[in-house]
């Protein structure tokens, strides 16, 4: 008889809180999106195989479906059989691009073509193209490998996880992710927090050697992956999971109520959007709008930078979802730990103190103008607000406003409907927080992640300095209070959109600092509203 393997504990950092029990689903680094790109010949045959497989599956679906579904599928199949559909992708591959990126870019171009149609019917065909795009992307990225994981059973184990892979994965089949490498500030970690998928990073290469199917506990509260858990360990975690489920159920009861503290203070709770996909299944009536759109999602899909129409379509999609609630879009915040090939500088000794955020946008007006044009056009269609990141001195805000006014005049001259949305600024550089009265912004949004990092001079993802990386540091709270005070005196809205807003322990000090607007990850919405409703009562009781 084989001895039962002993319990093994791997320790890493909590990228997204939660606890999960499941079976190890090891995904080697060459799986899907993270696989190394091959030669153009290999990429070409990869795409051709995926197309062939997609055609075979669609034909099978056509045979099985009723007449309504069949028409749509037959149309998709006809598209998939048309060389014109994938010719641009093959061309990009010949030029050295990866199969997945090439296919996605080719289809995105088609999708934008349909989205811009005047006719509703043709506009609606964009959905067919998207479906087709995702079908083939799924095959290309190996999302299909998900098929052999039991329903809701897997703990995804890999070296790292690309954001596009995260979005393509079927998260009903995985309970969480344990990464040997990765970073808690990565885009994938942000998406995991947005979706409420427990995730650990930095577990070390040894965890990748775990056997597929081995039982494991993912403790993304304390930062442990426990393989081959003992009976006692399992029992302990089962109890904790039950407690968390009860808490979540209690929190969920606050979702459809307005966010009000026990003593009647109304606090507006908005959501952060890292990618429009995180809004799937979220009822806009449960929040007060979108407080932060990280527009980087438009720029990190590979291929060319997004054109005006692509951006416009994305912004209109958000306004449409929000249904009359305000939507705040942050202009491109690249640089730092969010590089964009060909745009962000390479080889900076300290990227967090380098050409990032608004600094980068002002250094590339040709890129910035495209985004401002799309935003000015979208502003005509609903309550859009725009904010700029990483402002250090008032002159930067003034330059952004002047550039905005320029593109607005340009659009008006071209007969294109456009308007100037309220222009706000992120407060995350200590110099800006200290001298807040010198910034004439229409609203202020405190980016607590960067503010804490800059005020305490600690990086978020360095475990060795984690105790110093404290959002409750009096210096941080004082700066937040200062900004809130300035906003209250001058009638300008002040919100906070960092992870601090979603931390139950931070709510009381934030309210005490005078904050009345927060923006949190969609997965943290219920908990935040529940914390607000309970928090003040606790203080008073």
């Amino acid at each position: 008889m084989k001895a039962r393997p002993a319990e093994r504990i791997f320790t890493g950092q909590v990228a997204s809180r939660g606890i999960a029990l499941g079976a190890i689903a090891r995904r080697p680094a060459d799986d899907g999106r993270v696989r190394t790109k091959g030669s153009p010949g290999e990429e070409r045959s990869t795409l051709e195989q995926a197309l062939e497989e997609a055609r075979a599956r669609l034909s099978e679906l056509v045979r099985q479906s009723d007449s309504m579904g069949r028409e749509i599928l037959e149309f998709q199949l006809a598209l998939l059989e048309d060389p014109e559909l994938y010719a641009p992708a093959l061309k990009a591959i010949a030029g050295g691009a990866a199969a997945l990126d090439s296919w996605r870019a080719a289809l995105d171009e088609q999708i934008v073509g349909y989205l811009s149609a005047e006719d509703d019917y043709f506009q609606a065909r964009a959905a067919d193209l998207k479906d087709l795009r995702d079908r083939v992307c799924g095959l290309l990225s190996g999302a299909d490998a998900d098929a052999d994981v039991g329903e809701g059973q897997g703990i995804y184990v890999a070296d790292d996880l690309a954001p596009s892979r995260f979005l393509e994965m079927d998260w009903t089949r995985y309970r969480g992710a344990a990464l040997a490498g990765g970073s808690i500030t990565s885009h994938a970690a942000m998406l995991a927090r947005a979706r409420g998928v427990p995730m650990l990073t930095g577990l070390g290469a040894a965890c990748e050697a775990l056997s597929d199917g081995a039982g494991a506990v993912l403790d993304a509260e304390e930062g442990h992956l426990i393989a081959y858990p003992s009976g006692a360990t399992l029992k302990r975690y089962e109890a904790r999971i039950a407690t968390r489920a009860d808490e979540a159920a209690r929190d969920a009861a606050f979702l459809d109520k307005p966010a009000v503290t026990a003593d009647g203070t109304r606090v507006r709770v908005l959501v952060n959007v890292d990618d429009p996909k995180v809004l799937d299944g979220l009822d806009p009536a449960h929040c007060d709008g979108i407080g932060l759109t990280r527009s980087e999602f438009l720029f990190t899909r590979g291929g060319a930078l997004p054109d005006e129409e692509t951006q416009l379509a994305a912004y209109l999609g958000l306004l449409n979802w929000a249904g009359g609630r305000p939507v705040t879009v942050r202009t491109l915040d690249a640089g730092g730990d969010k590089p964009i090939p060909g745009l962000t500088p390479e080889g900076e000794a300290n990227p967090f103190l380098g050409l990032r955020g608004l600094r980068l946008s002002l250094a590339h007006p040709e890129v910035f103008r495209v985004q401002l044009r799309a935003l000015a056009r979208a502003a005509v269609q609903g309550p859009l607000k725009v904010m700029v990141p990483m402002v250090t001195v008032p002159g930067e805000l003034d330059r952004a406003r002047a550039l905005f006014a320029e593109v607005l005049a340009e659009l008006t001259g071209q007969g294109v409907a456009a308007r100037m949305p309220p222009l706000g600024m992120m407060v995350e550089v200590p110099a800006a927080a200290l001298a807040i009265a010198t910034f004439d912004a229409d609203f202020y949004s405190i980016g607590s992640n960067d503010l804490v990092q800059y005020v305490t001079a600690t990086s978020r993802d360095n475990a060795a300095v984690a105790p110093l990386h404290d959002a409750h540091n009096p210096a941080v709270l004082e700066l937040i209070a200062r900004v809130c005070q300035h906003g209250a005196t001058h009638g300008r809205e002040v919100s906070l959109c960092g992870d601090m807003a979603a931390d139950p322990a931070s709510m009381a000090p934030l309210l005490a600092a005078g904050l009345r607007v927060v923006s949190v990850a969609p997965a943290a919405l219920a908990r935040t509203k529940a914390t607000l409703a309970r928090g003040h009562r606790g203080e008073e009781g």
Partner: protein
Amino acid sequence: MTSDTDRMAAPAEGCTVITLPIGLHARPSVKLTKLAKTFDSAIRLRAGGEGANGDWVDAKSIVRVMAMKVRVGQTLTFRAEGMDAERAVNALVDLVERNFDESAPG
């Protein structure tokens, strides 16, 4: 096999008006391109009648045909080159005039 006489056969042309209320949408486009593919001739079409200056697109490509976004009331011109050019144009014009065998809306 394509012989030289095929290539030299006179091109055929024909035009017709789209009367489907919804325009040349997905299902009719599938029918049109499928029918076009049954002919050996190269077949192109463009929106507009004689003298129109729209781009000619490959009638066997659903991507191109859909991208034209042809709406009700627009004229379509077919042009075919090859041995069965005449038959191809007649068949395609006939398909449009039969309203793509779509049942009446309602």
